[in-house]
């Protein structure tokens, strides 16, 4: 009986998450269509995408119930790319934006 109630509760949560995903998708499209300044639009659209990803990761992939080790497995490559981007940005600014370095 309790198991049935748990499954029902779980299913309602999954439907709610789906409704949020659709809402966030529409919100992103509204920002894209409206005359929002480009930089602000890019920040907003990617923030909404990040929220959607977190919703899927935490609820559909059950990361919120997972062990810290799984979080570390996911975060390590993501942080490596962030680190790589941050490391390369000064070189891009130096060569392409300031026109230095030959």
């Amino acid at each position, binding site marked *: 009986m309790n198991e049935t109630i748990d499954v029902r509760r779980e*299913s309602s949560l999954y439907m709610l998450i789906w409704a949020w995903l659709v809402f966030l*998708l529409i919100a992103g499209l509204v920002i894209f269509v409206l005359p929002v300044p480009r930089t602000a639009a890019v920040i907003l659209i990617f923030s909404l995408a990040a929220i959607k990803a977190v919703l899927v990761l935490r*609820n559909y*992939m059950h990361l919120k119930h997972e062990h810290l*080790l799984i979080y570390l497995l996911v975060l390590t490559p993501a942080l490596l790319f962030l680190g790589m981007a941050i490391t390369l940005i000064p070189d891009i600014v130096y060569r392409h934006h300031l026109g230095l370095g030959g």
Partner: protein
Amino acid sequence: MAAGAQSVSAIAETDHLREIPAGKMAVWIFLASEILVFGGLITGFVLYQFAHGGFAADAAHVKWRFGAFNTLVLVTSSMTMIMALASARADDRRRVRTYLFLTILLGCLFLGVKGFEYRGEFREGFYPSSGMFWSFYFGMTGLHAMHMMGGIVINLMLLIAATRNVSSEFLQRRIEYGGLYWHFVDVVWIFLFPLLYLT
């Protein structure tokens, strides 16, 4: 001796690694390696844009409505996939089969729309060799589509398993692992869509 056995048991109990089933751990390690694949492409695309001032002229040719529709299809397929897992937990085989079938159908719809989109782009004269934007665009969306095909095959295998007399626990675990992969492919698209179509 007894004290030694007790301490070994205590270590085993506190060893959290043992709490994670080997299959699940393997899927997460695989997904971490997939982050390296897509992360490399996405970081390369963003840095190239930053260095060369964006791809506004080329990006104006991609049809964002197709991308938006496909995003809706993919998030819906993620929902049907997780509902298949919830149904497996309730040991409702009929619903498991229905939700898996819907997930496969939505996956095929996504690929159909993507194929239609590619056809339009080829007709307009845009190919992977048409410039840096198109190389990234076809490379990233093509790789993603191949992952979708893999996911469809996995779901087909799960659907076949659901029609056979396999144990409930076996089915639950396999749907959970297959679902992790499917949701990951969804998460990748969640970032590819704004990256290629909206910005």
